[in-house]
């Protein structure tokens, strides 16, 4: 294993990592200022994971978040610092997925359609379940899935159709990559929620605040709202990041990837 780690850190990797970190910070800060309800601050991390391997990905992710606190303002974002461990896990996961060839294998397009539809259906179910929590009994009671589907049939059909369209046009042949991004996003949502709730109450000054506020306004507890926000933002965010990397890898000359 030590040999594997050593092999990952060639001179080219060492040069690639700062560039990847700069990509993370530049795009992350751009999205932060655009106030979009996602982050997109791990494209560089996923890229290094995919091109080099899990250990290089982990180093990229961890250092990116730590150094984000030290770079000169207006790019400085101290909020990212305590989440460095999440970034390490994202880098590791991207690397392991990369080793399995997730970023190279082309999926059939129908698979992308199914993934998109199921994902959006789940997202709709999740949000509606949360919004319809019944707290009148003194403790939260989640609505049953049957009632929800009956009540919001149109919403679910619409979500599935939109998801299928996104799967067809955005994921294209990268179904496996999208799925890997979803999995990474779910893990990131779960492990980042405690820090987010404990340190910041889920408020970051970015676009995700609106989602937290919406859940809070709907009667969710602090913890539940932050976890809910993460579960809405993160899988979507990481899927998008993984897909951007998928497209980048397709636009790079073969000469570059060979090394």
């Amino acid at each position, binding site marked *: 294993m030590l040999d594997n780690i050593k092999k990952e850190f060639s001179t080219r990797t*060492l040069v690639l990592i700062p560039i990847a970190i700069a990509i993370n910070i530049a795009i992350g800060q751009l999205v932060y200022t655009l106030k979009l309800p996602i982050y997109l601050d791990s494209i560089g991390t996923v890229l290094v994971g995919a091109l080099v391997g899990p250990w290089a990905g982990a180093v990229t992710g961890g250092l990116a978040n730590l150094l984000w606190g030290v770079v000169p303002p207006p790019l400085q974002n101290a909020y990212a610092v305590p989440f460095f461990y999440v970034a390490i896990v994202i880098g590791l996961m991207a690397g392991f997925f990369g080793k399995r060839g997730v970023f190279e294998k082309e999926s059939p397009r129908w698979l992308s359609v199914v993934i998109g539809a199921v994902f959006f259906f789940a997202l709709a179910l999740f949000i509606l379940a949360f919004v319809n929590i019944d707290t009148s009994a003194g403790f939260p009671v989640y609505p049953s899935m049957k009632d929800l589907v009956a009540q919001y049939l149109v919403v679910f059909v619409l979500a599935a159709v939109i998801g299928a369209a996104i799967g067809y046009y955005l994921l294209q042949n990268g179904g496996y990559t999208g799925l890997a991004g979803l999995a990474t996003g779910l893990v990131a949502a779960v492990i980042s929620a405690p820090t987010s709730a404990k340190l910041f109450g889920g*408020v970051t000054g970015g676009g995700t605040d609106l989602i937290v506020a919406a859940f809070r306004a709907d009667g*969710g507890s602090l913890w539940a709202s932050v976890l809910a926000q993460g579960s809405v933002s993160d899988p979507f965010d990481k899927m998008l990041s993984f897909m951007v990397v998928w497209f980048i890898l397709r636009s790079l000359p073969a000469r570059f990837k060979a090394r």
Partner: protein
Amino acid sequence: MDSLSIYAARASGLHKLNPVTKFSLTLFLLVLGLALPGMWTSYLILVLIIVPLAIWGKVLDRLTRIVLTISWPFILSVFIIQTLFWGKGTTLFEFGPFAPKLEGAIFAFTSSGRILLIMADFILFSLATRPDTLMISLKQAGLYPGMAYIIVTTLQLVPQFAAKANAILNAQRARGLETQGNILVRARALLPLVMPLVIGSLMEVEERAIAIEARAFNSKHKETSLIEIPDSQVQRIVRIGMIVAALLAIVIRILWR
């Protein structure tokens, strides 16, 4: 170097400290602020440690200005969201449909203290430390040279990157890309901005790798430096003490609950 970092050259004791000492201090204060409980802790560390250090380094005015400029959007949103949407709690006053809660205000106050501390901590470090001396002293302290290279290159690269991103933004706008408007318009603008930035910079990897290898980056010999970086036994002891104290704080925090 001036445009790429916020380093403020002053003749002060803080500036003369070994960069590794200041880096350990920065991390130590970060851990302390995040690990210790209580709503006043962060503010106490700010007033009792960071402000005196900034006065010592003659950078208090710049530190205050930068921290206030970048922290107010966060503080504003944290107070609005936490007080208005807290749920059950003691109502402070009622104003139409809004009923701010005391518990929410306390929580917002605590979070704001934390974010102010983290920001002031890291910005004080950047104000008082020349980035190139950090790399040299990290290597002298025995850090793996590759790691030192990553840290310092990143700090220099990020501002350049932001400038490049801005150039791409302007270029794409000149071609008619819409970057303002509703969320869909803004989201659609993302890919034409991201792809040129990423692919353009990846093409530099080759050149940079050749450049540093041509400068004996992989040499096993100990290198000498033109800049003399002062260090002392006292600083070495203080550094180790701060690292131990930071680890202790984490352990205590985990055992506390």
